[in-house]
């Protein structure tokens, strides 16, 4: 009987070969009203557990704020979703079918997840218009990029985005000389050009003036609805002004979830934030 154990699995006629199974559909499937699933994620760096059994679900069209003290794993979570970091265990799905853990950064971006980094990283040597042009969704292989010409429709989209982010008069400015707030908006604009279904926004108002903050808040709320927006932010006033649902992360897992008021009256949250 032990000899049977040596028979390779590919001799089993009742099984379908791995490579014959149909590829999971690349289309975003929102049938269970959930655009992002993170389940039982674990990541550790040199023994430090940055993410610890994290579970998070985002609905389509939702604007979700994620708060938490330093080292709570907010940025690591973003890294996992965008493919920069691979978790040790767990699942990350975009819609019902798209397995984020099997995709590269570029594939994830193409599938419809856009990310705005903590530090604004626009292409400083290119002008505002060109920054948006490069970010635009489309065929990004080498030859099509070489042959690319802007169509009227694409011009209109860039135009729309320029108006939305309030940089329509600065389109030929080199991005490097924009103010900090303008760079943040440009970066959000670049995200929009990718036409993402899910926007990940990391600390959008860090270092902004109050006026700029208000403007950013308006921008983000206007974006939710058509797309889902996940905002990671430290600034409580800002979170209060835009948030509908808030998730509190602590030591790599979800501590509390609810409206801002619910969360702020949660005893565990108070403990973590005030150190009682």
């Amino acid at each position, binding site marked *: 009987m032990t000899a049977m154990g040596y028979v390779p699995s590919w001799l089993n006629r009742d099984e379908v070969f791995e490579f014959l199974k149909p590829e999971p559909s690349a289309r975003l499937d929102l049938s269970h009203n959930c655009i992002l699933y993170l389940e039982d994620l674990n990541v550790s760096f040199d023994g430090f557990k940055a993410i610890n059994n994290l579970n998070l679900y985002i609905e389509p069209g939702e604007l979700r704020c994620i708060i938490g003290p330093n080292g709570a794993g907010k940025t690591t979570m973003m890294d996992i979703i965008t493919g920069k970091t691979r978790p040790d265990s767990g699942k990350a799905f975009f819609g019902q079918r798209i397995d984020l853990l099997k995709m590269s950064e570029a594939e994830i971006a193409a599938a419809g997840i*856009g990310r705005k980094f903590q530090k604004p990283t626009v292409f400083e040597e290119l002008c505002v218009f060109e920054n948006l042009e490069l970010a635009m969704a489309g065929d990004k292989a080498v030859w099509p990029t070489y042959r690319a010409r802007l169509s009227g429709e694409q011009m209109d989209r860039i135009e729309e985005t320029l108006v939305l982010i309030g940089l329509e008069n600065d389109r030929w400015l080199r991005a490097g000389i924009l103010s900090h707030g303008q760079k943040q908006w440009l970066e959000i604009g670049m995200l929009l050009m990718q036409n993402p279904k899910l926007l990940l926004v990391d600390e959008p108002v860090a270092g902004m003036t109050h006026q700029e903050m208000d403007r950013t808040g308006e921008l983000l709320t206007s974006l939710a609805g058509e797309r889902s927006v996940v905002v990671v932010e430290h600034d409580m006033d800002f979170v209060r002004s835009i948030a509908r649902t808030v998730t509190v992360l602590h030591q790599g897992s979800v501590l509390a979830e609810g409206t801002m008021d619910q969360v702020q009256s949660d005893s565990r949250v108070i403990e973590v934030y005030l150190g009682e």
Partner: protein
Amino acid sequence: MLIKSLLANDRGGRILLTALLLVSVAVVASNQLLPQDSMLHVPTYTVTLLGKYLCYALLAVAVDLAWGYLGILSLGHGAFFALGGYAMGMYLMRQIGDRGVYGNPELPDFMVFLNWQELPWFWSGFDQFWFAMIMVLLVPGLLAFAFGWLAFRSRVTGVYLSIITQALTYALMLAFFRNEMGFGGNNGLTDFKDILGFSLQADSTRLGLFIASAIALAAGYLLCRSVTNSRLGRVSVAIRDSEDRVRFIGYRVEKIKLAVFTLSAVLAGVAGALYVPQVGIINPNEFSPLNSIEAVVWVAIGGRGTLFGAVVGALLVNYGKSYFTAAMPEAWLFALGAIFVLVTLFLPRGIVGLFNRDSDQPSKARHPTDGDDSGPVTTAALPQEAH
């Protein structure tokens, strides 16, 4: 039409290519029409020297495409230059036929000397000009492709990549020094007789090679300009400045780098192929890391990220080299070092940066309604598309 649209926002390029055309015509005319003792007569020796400079200029354009626009500081472009040169040299060796010292119709002299009985397999086909020309493009291209595929996929960047390119050319130099490699060892390939049936000693052939170099430089320049004008060029600049960010907006950075780097290597190979018949020899010293570094210095002195700056730098530095090595041979390396230091300190945008101050404020120059064509150097095509 195409050329015009490519150069629409490239004043430096227009000046450069016009000057190249005028100088080429003047050189050819004065060499052919004026009597030998005329003041304005350009001797054939000078024509060949100029042709050599043009090959260097094409190499510099290739380096600038990779370094100035894509951010890959290649300290090994001399390797691609030399490989193109070797491919051409092998063709020229086969053309010698039985006119070699040993009179062997099949084997080049050095093989007879080494007691080889038959031609190694990799020498077959090189008696055909078309085959050799394909190899001129293919060999540097394939090496760059394989090298880039490995390096860019594992995300080797910056100084580490520079060091590896340096090691690449050094390893090739050591390999080509070996007699067993079958490329003539440290003597290299030389004693060429003719190309396509024309004697290499003849004035007309030398003029022809000079003209071919000028055409290759102009074509290579326009090709690179068409890349930098395209969205691919803008993506390259974006990669140069922030590679990770480009990845997150959905471009396959390694593929784009690979394509542009390979193109750059092929251009370097073409430059090498035109260089060899004009200097009459190719040996492993062409792989020397020093040569590759010198090419980078030309680009830095001329002005990185402008393409025409690379040409200006290559021509000026090489003219200086010819002058100094004749006038005061010991001083040349000091002079080169001093120029490099001074340019880096006082002219961070290179020599052409002196004449292109207005591109510090691209807002004006870039505006499509402005009609000012002195536009920025890096991203010239855009206002065209905006109409």
